[in-house]
């Protein structure tokens, strides 16, 4: 349990205790001090607790553990531990090219102004699909739209290994096309092996991170 959550739980307990006092002795609100106390415990503290709670929950929803807590996502979690560097997601996760604690969120959030909000709205849709419809099998899950190179370039653009890589410079038109999102990073012949959850039965898993 992180410190802010512990602090928030203490604040909630403190608020509940003060409200209980007000419930038992509502007459204290006839005095000026009582009125101020009522305002603090029935307006200010609940709003503060709710705001901190929403912030804490939103932060938690970015975690890899949160994404993988849905049964349908288990194969995707497993794909992060594939012992083969040609698997893009596994290589990023195992080498901490993305924060291991927020691996899913880092790659699957659009790096735009409302990227996080869009990701949360899609998360609500996922909950609906998961609980109220028949979700597709893991290997049939598709992205809403083709993966945008912007998400890769957010980290890789400007990096020496990316800009001066031999394969990236083998064709002078390749890097401009990648940067303009005209040629996908995960297109065939490049980094097309990403999660590939359909082949998990035949791969060796890495246990170094556990």
């Amino acid at each position, binding site marked *: 349990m992180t410190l802010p959550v512990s602090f928030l739980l203490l604040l909630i*307990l403190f608020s509940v205790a003060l409200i209980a006092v007000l419930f038992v002795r509502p007459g204290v609100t006839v005095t000026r001090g009582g009125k101020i106390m*009522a305002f603090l415990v029935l307006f200010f503290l609940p709003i503060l607790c709710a705001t901190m709670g929403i912030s804490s929950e939103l932060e938690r929803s970015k975690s890899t553990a*949160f994404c993988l807590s849905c049964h349908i996502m288990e194969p995707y979690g497993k794909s992060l531990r594939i012992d083969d560097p040609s698997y893009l997601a596994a290589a990023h996760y195992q080498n901490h090219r993305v924060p291991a604690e927020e691996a899913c969120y880092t790659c699957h959030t659009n790096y735009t102004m409302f990227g996080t909000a869009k990701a949360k709205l899609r998360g609500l849709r996922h909950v609906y699909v998961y609980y109220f419809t028949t979700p597709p099998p893991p290997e049939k899950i598709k992205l809403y739209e083709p993966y945008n190179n912007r998400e890769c370039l957010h980290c890789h653009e400007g990096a020496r290994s990316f800009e001066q890589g031999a394969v990236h410079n083998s064709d002078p038109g390749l890097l401009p096309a990648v940067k303009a999102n005209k040629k996908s990073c995960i297109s065939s012949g490049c980094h097309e092996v990403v999660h590939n959850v359909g082949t998990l039965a035949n791969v060796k898993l890495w246990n170094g991170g556990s």
Partner: protein
Amino acid sequence: MTLSVNPAERRLQVSGVLIILGLLVEALCLAWRGPLAFLVFLGVGGLLLFAGIILFLISLVYHPGPES
């Protein structure tokens, strides 16, 4: 433990109960690590907190004056 006979105080007490319930739901959701926790927190806890705060604000607006 009973509700006050004074309508203004009773509104405060009901408001307090709603807010306590909302805060308890929030505390449970913070401890519960499931993906539905956030939805329950917003849907149930948020609604209870909102109702409690609105009732408190209403009790301020409709507080009986000294002539009543």
